[in-house]
């Protein structure tokens, strides 16, 4: 009895802690500024899309949105290709150098990427890669390779050698083995890694902040920091930006809850 009551209480509190802030944002984006301070939690009296109209008219959010889409998609696809190549190589090497390569990439998991920002900045300035979306893609790939390779190698190692051997006897090349066996079998792991990468790259602030200053090159999280300053007195505008920036993730989460949860926890625990 005591357990049941405390369970219900604990679950209700946490549920409220998630739902109320979410409603504040959703409702807030459809409210006038006056109303959001007056009745922050209640639904809007007059639903209005004026905030959205104003945001798209006055700000560069469309550009930032497109930058985020381009950077995220390219980073995820390229990381997946490079990481699955490397993992396949590592998993197929039997002698000690496979272990060494794996250890080398795993080293990256122990060093938080944020500690290297000074050298990264210096390097990017020297090669003229600041304020460049391809530059941002490059650093995203480098920083997410360790975790991706870690997860994919673990999976590729589980594929029985006999599969490869019988294909080799039939004359399949290494690339053919990679494409027709490893990739085919690893679809669930690949999609888990893809989702994990998608979320962290879409949401990342550190690298854009470090490398991008030009307005038309900014990604969403970086532009949102500007809106925070610009609309400091207008939380309904800020929440409208939060809605626009989060919507792609929310739609994907609602559609693919299971893969999202699996991908984000796999990436988290192994990273």
């Amino acid at each position: 009895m005591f357990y049941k009551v405390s369970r219900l209480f604990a679950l209700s509190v946490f549920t409220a802690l998630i739902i109320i802030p979410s409603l504040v944002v959703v409702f807030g984006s459809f409210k006038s500024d006056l109303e959001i301070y007056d009745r922050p939690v209640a639904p809007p009296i007059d639903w209005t899309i004026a905030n959205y109209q104003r945001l798209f008219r006055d700000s560069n959010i469309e550009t930032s949105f497109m930058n985020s889409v381009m950077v995220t998609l390219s980073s995820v696809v390229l990381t997946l290709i490079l990481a699955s190549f490397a993992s396949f190589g590592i998993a197929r090497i039997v002698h000690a150098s496979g272990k060494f390569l794996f250890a080398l990439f795993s080293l990256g998991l122990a060093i938080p990427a944020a500690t290297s920002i000074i050298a990264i900045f210096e390097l990017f300035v020297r090669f003229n890669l600041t304020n460049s979306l391809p530059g941002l893609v490059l650093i995203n790939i480098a920083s997410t390779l360790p975790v991706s390779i870690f997860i994919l190698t673990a999976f590729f190692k589980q594929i029985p050698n006999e599969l490869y051997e019988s294909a080799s006897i039939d004359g399949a090349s290494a690339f053919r083995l990679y494409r027709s066996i490893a990739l085919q079998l690893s679809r669930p792991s690949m999609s888990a890694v893809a989702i994990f990468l998608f979320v962290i790259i879409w949401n990342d602030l550190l690298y854009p902040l470090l490398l991008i200053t030009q307005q038309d090159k900014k990604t969403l999280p970086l532009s949102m920091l500007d809106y925070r300053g610009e609309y400091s007195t207008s939380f309904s505008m800020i929440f409208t930006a939060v809605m626009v920036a989060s919507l792609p993730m929310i739609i994907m989460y609602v559609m693919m809850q299971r893969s999202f949860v699996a991908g984000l926890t796999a990436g988290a625990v192994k990273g």
Partner: protein
Amino acid sequence: MTVPALVIYSSLYLYPALSNLRYSLTRWDGFTEPEFVGLRNFTNALTNDDLFTKVLGNNVEFSLLVVIFQTGFSLLFATMLVKNTRASVFLRTLYFFPTILSSVSVAMIWAFLYDPNFGAINVFFKFIGLDSFALNWLGSETATLRAIAFTQIWFHTGQMMVVYIAGLQQIPQELYEAAEVDGATRWQQFKAVTWPMILPTTAVVMAYTTIQSFRAFDLVYAMTQGGPNNSSNIFVTLIYLTAFNEFRFGYAAMQSIYMIAFILFLTGVQRRVLRTRY
């Protein structure tokens, strides 16, 4: 096939990490030639830098709060939602939800909720008559670090809960049945079965949460930029601010080295403690 990944990783991950060692021995503003100063940065930080000591203390407090409460809450909710009922599955999905948001969005949501005048939190405290709890959450030197820690816990508890649920579902059901036959209460079952069986998962969760708390750059930067008066400044934000607001690149590189050493030390200690107990 490993070569392309290896090239990018070595040049943009390992090389910058190693460069830190070199830069940390210099005095350098990022523009002119670095000047070699030996270990002076390292000794200065420990003997003659109040800010560094303060940030070290902040980071310890922040990480302790986050690790203890996030691990505790995620285990608590995991045990409550471990059964695959419809309601449990729904609540799991809901609790996991903040994980997919960006730190910047989360920072803005909580900046509104924490607002001293119209924020939902103070409105709530005043409503139930606890006016003394209505603080200036992101504006006072005593409350800010804790307010951000709470946001971080809110942000990631659901994610760690899912990790715990996966671990809990591995525990053989017979153990609980046997305990029940012996008349064990719920709490006794937790102590005798769940806790020892889940210890390996706890080790993973705590190690990850520790590292995650050190990496909380996005959240702290978007909420307060380390303020007011550096009261919410932690290592990652300090490194960024030292380098890009004060242009002391060599000194910031030194701070990075200390941060890595500190993380390795902490995760090493955790691993040892949890292994010997287990």
